Protein backbone atom coordinates (compact mmCIF):
# COMPACT_ATOMS: atom_id res chain seq x y z
CA UNK A 1 0.00 0.00 0.00
CA UNK A 2 1.42 3.39 -0.87
CA UNK A 3 1.82 6.22 1.61
CA UNK A 4 -0.19 8.74 -0.38
CA UNK A 5 -2.70 7.62 -2.97
CA UNK A 6 -4.26 10.10 -5.37
CA UNK A 7 -7.15 8.35 -7.04
CA UNK A 8 -8.78 9.61 -10.21
CA UNK A 9 -9.11 13.26 -9.26
CA UNK A 10 -11.26 15.55 -11.37
CA UNK A 11 -11.83 19.14 -10.48
CA UNK A 12 -13.98 21.77 -12.15
CA UNK A 13 -14.26 25.43 -11.22
CA UNK A 14 -17.66 26.97 -11.70
CA UNK A 15 -18.20 30.63 -12.44
CA UNK A 16 -21.28 32.41 -13.74
CA UNK A 17 -19.86 32.53 -17.22
CA UNK A 18 -18.32 29.07 -17.47
CA UNK A 19 -17.31 25.77 -16.00
CA UNK A 20 -13.55 25.26 -16.28
CA UNK A 21 -12.09 21.84 -15.81
CA UNK A 22 -8.81 22.39 -14.00
CA UNK A 23 -7.84 18.78 -13.39
CA UNK A 24 -8.78 15.57 -15.06
CA UNK A 25 -7.97 11.91 -14.40
CA UNK A 26 -5.16 12.50 -11.94
CA UNK A 27 -3.90 9.31 -10.33
CA UNK A 28 -0.60 9.03 -8.54
CA UNK A 29 1.04 7.05 -5.77
CA UNK A 30 3.71 8.46 -3.52
CA UNK A 31 5.89 6.36 -1.24
CA UNK A 32 6.97 7.41 2.22
CA UNK A 33 10.11 9.55 2.22
CA UNK A 34 9.81 10.33 -1.46
CA UNK A 35 10.29 13.79 -2.91
CA UNK A 36 8.01 14.51 -5.86
CA UNK A 37 7.91 17.59 -8.08
CA UNK A 38 4.92 18.82 -10.04
CA UNK A 39 6.24 20.59 -13.10
CA UNK A 40 4.31 22.25 -15.85
CA UNK A 41 3.32 25.47 -17.59
CA UNK A 42 1.22 27.93 -15.60
CA UNK A 43 -2.48 27.21 -15.55
CA UNK A 44 -2.15 23.43 -15.54
CA UNK A 45 -3.72 23.05 -12.11
CA UNK A 46 -0.60 22.20 -10.09
CA UNK A 47 -1.52 24.44 -7.20
CA UNK A 48 -5.14 23.29 -7.34
CA UNK A 49 -4.00 19.69 -7.00
CA UNK A 50 -1.78 20.65 -4.07
CA UNK A 51 -4.71 22.35 -2.35
CA UNK A 52 -6.84 19.26 -2.94
CA UNK A 53 -4.19 16.97 -1.46
CA UNK A 54 -3.93 19.32 1.52
CA UNK A 55 -7.68 19.09 2.00
CA UNK A 56 -8.20 22.81 1.43
CA UNK A 57 -10.37 22.25 -1.64
CA UNK A 58 -12.83 19.44 -2.08
CA UNK A 59 -12.38 17.86 -5.51
CA UNK A 60 -15.41 17.44 -7.79
CA UNK A 61 -14.55 13.77 -8.03
CA UNK A 62 -11.94 11.35 -6.71
CA UNK A 63 -10.31 10.56 -3.40
CA UNK A 64 -7.04 11.19 -1.63
CA UNK A 65 -5.78 8.61 0.85
CA UNK A 66 -2.95 9.23 3.27
CA UNK A 67 -1.87 5.97 4.89
CA UNK A 68 -5.16 4.48 3.74
CA UNK A 69 -7.25 7.11 5.45
CA UNK A 70 -9.24 9.77 3.59
CA UNK A 71 -7.58 13.15 3.85
CA UNK A 72 -10.64 14.98 5.16
CA UNK A 73 -10.67 15.03 8.91
CA UNK A 74 -6.94 14.51 9.19
CA UNK A 75 -5.53 17.49 10.99
CA UNK A 76 -1.92 18.57 11.07
CA UNK A 77 -0.77 15.65 8.97
CA UNK A 78 0.07 18.00 6.14
CA UNK A 79 2.32 21.02 6.14
CA UNK A 80 1.93 23.66 3.48
CA UNK A 81 4.48 26.21 2.37
CA UNK A 82 3.49 29.05 0.10
CA UNK A 83 5.27 31.16 -2.51
CA UNK A 84 5.85 33.86 0.02
CA UNK A 85 6.55 33.27 3.68
CA UNK A 86 3.25 34.74 4.93
CA UNK A 87 4.66 35.17 8.39
CA UNK A 88 2.20 37.25 10.38
CA UNK A 89 3.77 40.73 10.50
CA UNK A 90 2.30 41.57 13.91
CA UNK A 91 3.68 38.42 15.57
CA UNK A 92 7.27 37.84 16.62
CA UNK A 93 9.18 35.02 14.96
CA UNK A 94 8.62 32.85 18.03
CA UNK A 95 4.85 33.45 17.98
CA UNK A 96 4.87 32.79 14.26
CA UNK A 97 6.61 29.43 14.41
CA UNK A 98 4.47 28.27 17.35
CA UNK A 99 1.14 29.21 15.76
CA UNK A 100 0.52 25.74 14.31
CA UNK A 101 1.13 24.07 17.68
CA UNK A 102 -1.05 26.65 19.40
CA UNK A 103 -3.96 26.14 16.98
CA UNK A 104 -3.88 22.38 17.32
CA UNK A 105 -3.41 22.63 21.10
CA UNK A 106 -0.12 20.73 21.00
CA UNK A 107 1.81 23.60 22.51
CA UNK A 108 3.77 22.52 25.57
CA UNK A 109 7.32 22.92 26.84
CA UNK A 110 8.53 19.96 24.83
CA UNK A 111 7.10 20.91 21.44
CA UNK A 112 8.07 24.51 22.03
CA UNK A 113 11.70 23.73 22.69
CA UNK A 114 11.72 21.38 19.69
CA UNK A 115 10.48 24.19 17.46
CA UNK A 116 13.05 26.61 18.86
CA UNK A 117 15.78 23.99 18.35
CA UNK A 118 14.73 23.67 14.75
CA UNK A 119 14.99 27.43 14.41
CA UNK A 120 18.57 27.24 15.64
CA UNK A 121 19.36 24.43 13.22
CA UNK A 122 18.12 26.63 10.39
CA UNK A 123 20.74 29.20 11.36
CA UNK A 124 18.21 31.56 12.87
CA UNK A 125 19.57 31.89 16.35
CA UNK A 126 18.64 34.81 18.57
CA UNK A 127 15.88 36.27 16.42
CA UNK A 128 12.93 34.79 18.34
CA UNK A 129 11.74 38.15 19.62
CA UNK A 130 12.12 40.00 16.33
CA UNK A 131 9.34 40.87 13.94
CA UNK A 132 9.34 39.37 10.42
CA UNK A 133 10.02 42.74 8.78
CA UNK A 134 13.42 42.84 10.48
CA UNK A 135 14.50 39.71 8.58
CA UNK A 136 15.71 39.20 5.02
CA UNK A 137 13.64 37.28 2.49
CA UNK A 138 15.70 34.10 2.86
CA UNK A 139 15.55 34.20 6.65
CA UNK A 140 11.80 34.72 6.55
CA UNK A 141 11.30 31.74 4.25
CA UNK A 142 13.44 29.63 6.60
CA UNK A 143 11.31 30.76 9.54
CA UNK A 144 8.22 29.80 7.52
CA UNK A 145 9.75 26.35 6.99
CA UNK A 146 10.24 26.00 10.74
CA UNK A 147 6.60 27.00 11.26
CA UNK A 148 5.53 24.32 8.79
CA UNK A 149 7.73 21.61 10.31
CA UNK A 150 6.92 22.49 13.94
CA UNK A 151 3.67 20.51 13.93
CA UNK A 152 5.57 17.50 12.57
CA UNK A 153 3.47 16.93 9.46
CA UNK A 154 3.75 13.58 7.69
CA UNK A 155 3.51 15.15 4.28
CA UNK A 156 4.95 18.46 3.16
CA UNK A 157 3.54 20.62 0.37
CA UNK A 158 5.87 23.17 -1.16
CA UNK A 159 4.06 25.59 -3.45
CA UNK A 160 6.86 27.35 -5.33
CA UNK A 161 8.49 28.31 -2.03
CA UNK A 162 11.67 29.60 -3.63
CA UNK A 163 10.23 31.59 -6.51
CA UNK A 164 10.20 34.95 -4.70
CA UNK A 165 13.86 34.71 -3.65
CA UNK A 166 17.03 35.82 -5.40
CA UNK A 167 19.02 33.10 -7.14
CA UNK A 168 21.79 32.68 -4.57
CA UNK A 169 19.38 32.49 -1.63
CA UNK A 170 17.26 30.07 -3.60
CA UNK A 171 20.16 27.67 -4.19
CA UNK A 172 21.14 27.77 -0.52
CA UNK A 173 17.57 27.18 0.62
CA UNK A 174 17.13 24.28 -1.79
CA UNK A 175 20.05 22.54 -0.10
CA UNK A 176 18.79 23.39 3.36
CA UNK A 177 15.24 22.17 2.71
CA UNK A 178 16.47 19.05 0.98
CA UNK A 179 18.83 18.22 3.88
CA UNK A 180 16.21 18.91 6.51
CA UNK A 181 13.57 16.79 4.82
CA UNK A 182 16.06 13.96 4.32
CA UNK A 183 17.12 13.98 7.94
CA UNK A 184 13.51 13.89 9.13
CA UNK A 185 12.55 11.37 6.47
CA UNK A 186 9.64 13.52 5.32
CA UNK A 187 7.59 12.97 2.23
CA UNK A 188 7.27 16.12 0.14
CA UNK A 189 5.58 17.44 -2.95
CA UNK A 190 7.06 20.49 -4.64
CA UNK A 191 5.21 22.61 -7.17
CA UNK A 192 7.54 24.51 -9.47
CA UNK A 193 7.94 25.83 -12.99
CA UNK A 194 11.73 25.67 -12.71
CA UNK A 195 12.97 22.53 -14.44
CA UNK A 196 16.40 22.69 -12.79
CA UNK A 197 14.91 22.98 -9.32
CA UNK A 198 12.61 20.02 -9.95
CA UNK A 199 15.47 17.82 -11.13
CA UNK A 200 17.88 18.87 -8.40
CA UNK A 201 15.49 18.28 -5.52
CA UNK A 202 13.28 15.38 -6.50
CA UNK A 203 13.19 11.63 -6.76
CA UNK A 204 10.46 11.85 -9.35
CA UNK A 205 9.26 14.69 -11.57
CA UNK A 206 5.63 14.69 -12.67
CA UNK A 207 5.06 16.71 -15.83
CA UNK A 208 1.61 18.23 -16.27
CA UNK A 209 -0.06 19.29 -19.49
CA UNK A 210 -2.52 22.19 -19.38
CA UNK A 211 -6.24 22.68 -20.07
CA UNK A 212 -7.42 20.52 -18.51
CA UNK A 213 -4.56 19.66 -16.18
CA UNK A 214 -3.40 16.09 -16.74
CA UNK A 215 -0.36 14.06 -15.89
CA UNK A 216 1.61 14.06 -19.11
CA UNK A 217 4.64 12.05 -18.09
CA UNK A 218 6.53 10.92 -15.01
CA UNK A 219 10.32 11.04 -14.97
CA UNK A 220 12.36 8.96 -12.55
CA UNK A 221 15.47 10.85 -11.52
CA UNK A 222 18.70 8.85 -11.90
CA UNK A 223 20.05 7.27 -8.73
CA UNK A 224 23.26 9.34 -8.78
CA UNK A 225 21.31 12.62 -8.67
CA UNK A 226 18.96 11.57 -5.88
CA UNK A 227 21.70 10.88 -3.40
CA UNK A 228 23.46 14.23 -3.63
CA UNK A 229 22.46 17.71 -2.57
CA UNK A 230 20.51 19.92 -5.01
CA UNK A 231 23.49 22.18 -5.55
CA UNK A 232 25.78 19.29 -6.45
CA UNK A 233 23.05 17.72 -8.55
CA UNK A 234 22.93 20.85 -10.67
CA UNK A 235 26.65 20.40 -11.44
CA UNK A 236 26.45 16.64 -12.05
CA UNK A 237 27.00 15.36 -15.57
CA UNK A 238 23.68 13.46 -15.55
CA UNK A 239 21.84 16.72 -14.86
CA UNK A 240 21.99 18.26 -18.31
CA UNK A 241 20.80 15.19 -20.21
CA UNK A 242 17.70 14.83 -18.04
CA UNK A 243 17.20 18.59 -18.25
CA UNK A 244 17.22 18.32 -22.05
CA UNK A 245 14.76 15.45 -21.96
CA UNK A 246 12.24 17.33 -19.80
CA UNK A 247 12.82 20.55 -21.73
CA UNK A 248 11.90 18.82 -24.97
CA UNK A 249 8.73 17.37 -23.46
CA UNK A 250 7.70 20.78 -22.12
CA UNK A 251 8.45 22.32 -25.48
CA UNK A 252 6.38 19.72 -27.31
CA UNK A 253 3.48 20.51 -24.95
CA UNK A 254 3.65 24.15 -25.95
CA UNK A 255 4.01 23.57 -29.70
CA UNK A 256 1.36 20.87 -29.58
CA UNK A 257 -1.01 23.46 -28.19
CA UNK A 258 -0.41 25.93 -31.04
Amino acid at each position, binding site marked *: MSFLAIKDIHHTYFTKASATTALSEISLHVEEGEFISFLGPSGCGKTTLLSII*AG*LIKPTQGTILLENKPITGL*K*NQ*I*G*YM*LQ*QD*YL*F*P*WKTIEENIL*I*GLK*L*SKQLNEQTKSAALDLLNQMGLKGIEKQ*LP*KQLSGGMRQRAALVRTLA*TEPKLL*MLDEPFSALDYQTKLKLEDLVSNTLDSFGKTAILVTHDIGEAIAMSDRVVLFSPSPGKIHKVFEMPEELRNISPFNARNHEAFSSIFQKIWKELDSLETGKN
Partner: protein
Amino acid sequence: MKQGKTNVSLLHKNYLHSLTIKKRWVRFYQIVIFLLFFSSWEISSQKRWIDPLLFSSPSKIWDLFLEKLQDGSLMANLGVTLTETIFGFILGTLLGTVLAALLWWSPMLSKIVDPYLVILNAMPKVALGPILIVALGPGYPSIIAMGAIISVIITTIVVYTSFKEVDPNYLKVLQTFGATRLQCFKEAILPASFPTIISTLKVNVGLSWVGVIVGEFLVSSRGLGYFIIYGFQVFNFTLVFLSLLVIAVVATIMYQLVELLEKKLIKE
Protein backbone atom coordinates in the same frame (compact mmCIF):
# COMPACT_ATOMS: atom_id res chain seq x y z
CA MET B 1 39.38 60.59 2.10
CA LYS B 2 39.10 62.61 5.28
CA GLN B 3 38.33 65.67 3.21
CA GLY B 4 35.44 63.82 1.58
CA LYS B 5 34.06 62.72 4.91
CA THR B 6 33.99 66.19 6.43
CA ASN B 7 32.38 67.42 3.26
CA VAL B 8 29.56 64.92 3.59
CA SER B 9 28.97 65.70 7.24
CA LEU B 10 29.00 69.41 6.40
CA LEU B 11 26.47 68.88 3.63
CA HIS B 12 24.32 66.84 5.97
CA LYS B 13 24.49 69.64 8.54
CA ASN B 14 23.42 72.13 5.90
CA TYR B 15 20.58 69.89 4.88
CA LEU B 16 19.34 69.54 8.46
CA HIS B 17 19.69 73.29 8.88
CA SER B 18 17.55 73.96 5.80
CA LEU B 19 14.92 71.55 7.17
CA THR B 20 14.75 73.43 10.48
CA ILE B 21 14.45 76.74 8.68
CA LYS B 22 11.59 75.46 6.54
CA LYS B 23 9.85 74.11 9.63
CA ARG B 24 10.24 77.46 11.38
CA TRP B 25 8.72 79.32 8.44
CA VAL B 26 5.72 77.00 8.44
CA ARG B 27 5.23 77.60 12.18
CA PHE B 28 5.69 81.34 11.63
CA TYR B 29 2.94 81.55 9.01
CA GLN B 30 0.64 79.38 11.12
CA ILE B 31 1.04 81.78 14.04
CA VAL B 32 0.60 84.79 11.74
CA ILE B 33 -2.70 83.41 10.47
CA PHE B 34 -3.83 82.73 14.04
CA LEU B 35 -2.95 86.24 15.26
CA LEU B 36 -4.28 87.89 12.12
CA PHE B 37 -7.62 86.12 12.43
CA PHE B 38 -8.22 86.98 16.08
CA SER B 39 -6.86 90.53 15.94
CA SER B 40 -8.88 91.44 12.86
CA TRP B 41 -11.92 89.90 14.54
CA GLU B 42 -11.28 92.00 17.65
CA ILE B 43 -10.60 95.22 15.74
CA SER B 44 -13.53 94.92 13.35
CA SER B 45 -15.81 94.23 16.27
CA GLN B 46 -14.59 97.24 18.24
CA LYS B 47 -14.77 99.53 15.19
CA ARG B 48 -18.28 98.18 14.55
CA TRP B 49 -17.37 96.95 11.05
CA ILE B 50 -19.18 93.78 12.06
CA ASP B 51 -22.14 93.59 14.42
CA PRO B 52 -20.64 92.96 17.90
CA LEU B 53 -23.95 91.61 19.13
CA LEU B 54 -23.91 88.90 16.49
CA PHE B 55 -20.19 88.21 16.07
CA SER B 56 -19.03 89.10 19.58
CA SER B 57 -15.27 89.61 19.94
CA PRO B 58 -12.30 87.60 21.23
CA SER B 59 -11.89 89.82 24.28
CA LYS B 60 -15.54 89.37 25.28
CA ILE B 61 -15.25 85.64 24.74
CA TRP B 62 -12.11 85.56 26.89
CA ASP B 63 -13.85 87.49 29.68
CA LEU B 64 -16.79 85.13 29.56
CA PHE B 65 -14.37 82.19 29.50
CA LEU B 66 -12.77 83.38 32.74
CA GLU B 67 -16.16 84.05 34.29
CA LYS B 68 -17.57 80.63 33.39
CA LEU B 69 -14.34 79.01 34.49
CA GLN B 70 -14.63 80.68 37.88
CA ASP B 71 -18.24 79.78 38.54
CA GLY B 72 -17.40 76.22 37.46
CA SER B 73 -20.19 75.95 34.91
CA LEU B 74 -17.83 75.65 31.91
CA MET B 75 -15.92 72.70 33.32
CA ALA B 76 -19.10 70.98 34.50
CA ASN B 77 -20.74 71.31 31.09
CA LEU B 78 -17.57 70.40 29.23
CA GLY B 79 -17.26 67.34 31.44
CA VAL B 80 -20.78 66.24 30.54
CA THR B 81 -20.28 66.67 26.81
CA LEU B 82 -16.84 65.06 26.88
CA THR B 83 -18.11 61.99 28.75
CA GLU B 84 -20.98 61.59 26.31
CA THR B 85 -18.67 61.95 23.33
CA ILE B 86 -16.10 59.45 24.62
CA PHE B 87 -18.79 56.88 25.39
CA GLY B 88 -20.45 57.63 22.06
CA PHE B 89 -17.44 57.05 19.90
CA ILE B 90 -16.12 54.06 21.78
CA LEU B 91 -19.56 52.47 21.66
CA GLY B 92 -19.93 53.34 17.97
CA THR B 93 -16.55 51.88 17.07
CA LEU B 94 -17.01 48.71 19.15
CA LEU B 95 -20.53 48.08 17.89
CA GLY B 96 -19.45 48.74 14.31
CA THR B 97 -16.56 46.28 14.67
CA VAL B 98 -18.82 43.62 16.18
CA LEU B 99 -21.33 44.07 13.37
CA ALA B 100 -18.51 43.84 10.83
CA ALA B 101 -17.36 40.61 12.49
CA LEU B 102 -20.88 39.16 12.20
CA LEU B 103 -21.01 40.08 8.52
CA TRP B 104 -17.61 38.44 7.97
CA TRP B 105 -18.73 35.36 9.87
CA SER B 106 -21.76 34.84 7.68
CA PRO B 107 -21.32 35.77 4.00
CA MET B 108 -25.01 34.96 3.54
CA LEU B 109 -26.00 37.53 6.17
CA SER B 110 -23.73 40.14 4.59
CA LYS B 111 -25.38 39.60 1.20
CA ILE B 112 -28.83 39.90 2.74
CA VAL B 113 -28.22 43.09 4.70
CA ASP B 114 -26.06 44.81 2.09
CA PRO B 115 -28.81 47.10 0.66
CA TYR B 116 -29.99 47.98 4.17
CA LEU B 117 -26.50 49.04 5.14
CA VAL B 118 -26.35 51.32 2.11
CA ILE B 119 -29.73 52.87 3.03
CA LEU B 120 -28.80 53.30 6.69
CA ASN B 121 -25.48 54.84 5.74
CA ALA B 122 -27.12 57.32 3.39
CA MET B 123 -29.80 58.31 5.90
CA PRO B 124 -29.02 61.37 8.06
CA LYS B 125 -28.72 59.78 11.49
CA VAL B 126 -29.41 63.01 13.39
CA ALA B 127 -32.97 62.78 12.07
CA LEU B 128 -33.38 59.84 14.44
CA GLY B 129 -32.86 62.22 17.36
CA PRO B 130 -36.51 62.77 18.30
CA ILE B 131 -37.23 59.02 18.21
CA LEU B 132 -34.22 58.27 20.42
CA ILE B 133 -35.32 60.85 22.95
CA VAL B 134 -38.79 59.41 23.20
CA ALA B 135 -37.45 55.86 23.34
CA LEU B 136 -34.57 56.37 25.79
CA GLY B 137 -35.74 59.43 27.64
CA PRO B 138 -34.15 62.87 27.68
CA GLY B 139 -30.77 62.33 29.30
CA TYR B 140 -27.40 60.64 28.96
CA PRO B 141 -28.56 57.43 27.27
CA SER B 142 -30.22 59.11 24.31
CA ILE B 143 -27.34 61.53 23.76
CA ILE B 144 -24.73 58.77 23.97
CA ALA B 145 -26.86 56.71 21.59
CA MET B 146 -26.83 59.68 19.23
CA GLY B 147 -23.05 59.91 19.41
CA ALA B 148 -22.77 56.17 18.72
CA ILE B 149 -25.42 55.80 16.04
CA ILE B 150 -23.86 58.47 13.87
CA SER B 151 -20.65 56.46 13.52
CA VAL B 152 -21.73 52.83 13.80
CA ILE B 153 -22.85 52.16 10.22
CA ILE B 154 -19.86 53.75 8.53
CA THR B 155 -17.58 51.88 10.95
CA THR B 156 -19.31 48.61 10.06
CA ILE B 157 -18.83 49.22 6.35
CA VAL B 158 -15.20 50.32 6.57
CA VAL B 159 -14.11 47.59 8.99
CA TYR B 160 -15.99 44.87 7.10
CA THR B 161 -14.25 45.93 3.89
CA SER B 162 -10.92 45.68 5.63
CA PHE B 163 -11.81 42.21 7.00
CA LYS B 164 -12.55 41.06 3.46
CA GLU B 165 -9.34 42.49 2.07
CA VAL B 166 -7.05 40.48 4.34
CA ASP B 167 -4.75 38.39 2.13
CA PRO B 168 -6.45 34.97 1.80
CA ASN B 169 -3.05 33.29 1.94
CA TYR B 170 -2.83 34.15 5.66
CA LEU B 171 -6.05 32.17 6.10
CA LYS B 172 -4.63 29.38 3.97
CA VAL B 173 -1.64 29.14 6.32
CA LEU B 174 -3.99 28.84 9.31
CA GLN B 175 -6.30 26.38 7.58
CA THR B 176 -3.40 24.04 6.85
CA PHE B 177 -2.95 23.93 10.63
CA GLY B 178 -6.62 22.99 10.94
CA ALA B 179 -7.74 26.37 12.31
CA THR B 180 -11.43 26.96 12.93
CA ARG B 181 -13.18 30.05 11.61
CA LEU B 182 -13.01 31.65 15.05
CA GLN B 183 -9.27 30.99 15.23
CA CYS B 184 -8.82 32.46 11.75
CA PHE B 185 -10.65 35.57 12.90
CA LYS B 186 -8.64 35.91 16.08
CA GLU B 187 -5.21 35.16 14.63
CA ALA B 188 -5.38 36.82 11.22
CA ILE B 189 -8.48 38.84 10.35
CA LEU B 190 -8.73 41.00 13.47
CA PRO B 191 -5.03 41.82 13.97
CA ALA B 192 -4.59 42.50 10.25
CA SER B 193 -7.47 44.99 10.40
CA PHE B 194 -6.27 46.69 13.55
CA PRO B 195 -4.81 49.70 11.72
CA THR B 196 -8.14 50.26 9.96
CA ILE B 197 -10.07 50.04 13.22
CA ILE B 198 -7.79 52.63 14.81
CA SER B 199 -8.17 54.95 11.85
CA THR B 200 -11.97 54.68 12.01
CA LEU B 201 -11.59 55.64 15.65
CA LYS B 202 -10.06 58.90 14.45
CA VAL B 203 -12.94 59.59 12.08
CA ASN B 204 -15.45 58.63 14.76
CA VAL B 205 -14.06 61.19 17.21
CA GLY B 206 -15.26 63.93 14.86
CA LEU B 207 -18.56 62.22 14.07
CA SER B 208 -19.43 61.62 17.71
CA TRP B 209 -18.95 65.29 18.55
CA VAL B 210 -21.56 66.09 15.91
CA GLY B 211 -23.96 63.47 17.27
CA VAL B 212 -23.56 64.52 20.88
CA ILE B 213 -23.88 68.26 20.23
CA VAL B 214 -27.03 67.70 18.15
CA GLY B 215 -28.35 65.43 20.90
CA GLU B 216 -27.78 68.18 23.45
CA PHE B 217 -29.49 70.68 21.18
CA LEU B 218 -32.56 68.51 21.36
CA VAL B 219 -32.81 67.52 24.98
CA SER B 220 -30.24 68.57 27.37
CA SER B 221 -30.16 71.03 30.14
CA ARG B 222 -26.45 70.47 30.42
CA GLY B 223 -23.40 70.29 28.17
CA LEU B 224 -21.82 72.51 25.54
CA GLY B 225 -24.64 71.83 23.10
CA TYR B 226 -26.99 73.23 25.70
CA PHE B 227 -24.70 76.28 26.07
CA ILE B 228 -24.95 76.88 22.34
CA ILE B 229 -28.73 76.52 22.16
CA TYR B 230 -29.16 78.62 25.33
CA GLY B 231 -26.86 81.36 24.00
CA PHE B 232 -28.87 81.38 20.80
CA GLN B 233 -32.19 81.65 22.66
CA VAL B 234 -31.12 84.58 24.84
CA PHE B 235 -29.13 86.14 22.00
CA ASN B 236 -25.83 85.72 23.85
CA PHE B 237 -23.60 84.89 20.92
CA THR B 238 -20.49 85.30 23.02
CA LEU B 239 -21.57 82.13 24.80
CA VAL B 240 -22.10 80.39 21.44
CA PHE B 241 -18.62 81.32 20.25
CA LEU B 242 -17.07 80.34 23.56
CA SER B 243 -18.64 76.88 23.30
CA LEU B 244 -17.52 76.54 19.69
CA LEU B 245 -13.93 77.42 20.51
CA VAL B 246 -13.85 75.08 23.50
CA ILE B 247 -15.25 72.26 21.35
CA ALA B 248 -12.63 72.95 18.67
CA VAL B 249 -9.79 72.79 21.18
CA VAL B 250 -11.04 69.71 23.03
CA ALA B 251 -11.90 67.81 19.82
CA THR B 252 -8.39 68.51 18.51
CA ILE B 253 -6.82 67.24 21.73
CA MET B 254 -8.94 64.09 21.55
CA TYR B 255 -7.91 63.51 17.96
CA GLN B 256 -4.26 63.90 18.90
CA LEU B 257 -4.67 61.43 21.75
CA VAL B 258 -6.16 58.83 19.42
CA GLU B 259 -3.26 59.44 17.05
CA LEU B 260 -0.85 58.88 19.94
CA LEU B 261 -2.67 55.65 20.79
CA GLU B 262 -2.34 54.61 17.15
CA LYS B 263 1.43 55.09 17.24
CA LYS B 264 1.70 53.10 20.48
CA LEU B 265 -0.48 50.20 19.40
CA ILE B 266 0.75 49.63 15.88
CA LYS B 267 4.24 48.27 15.98
CA GLU B 268 4.69 47.90 12.26
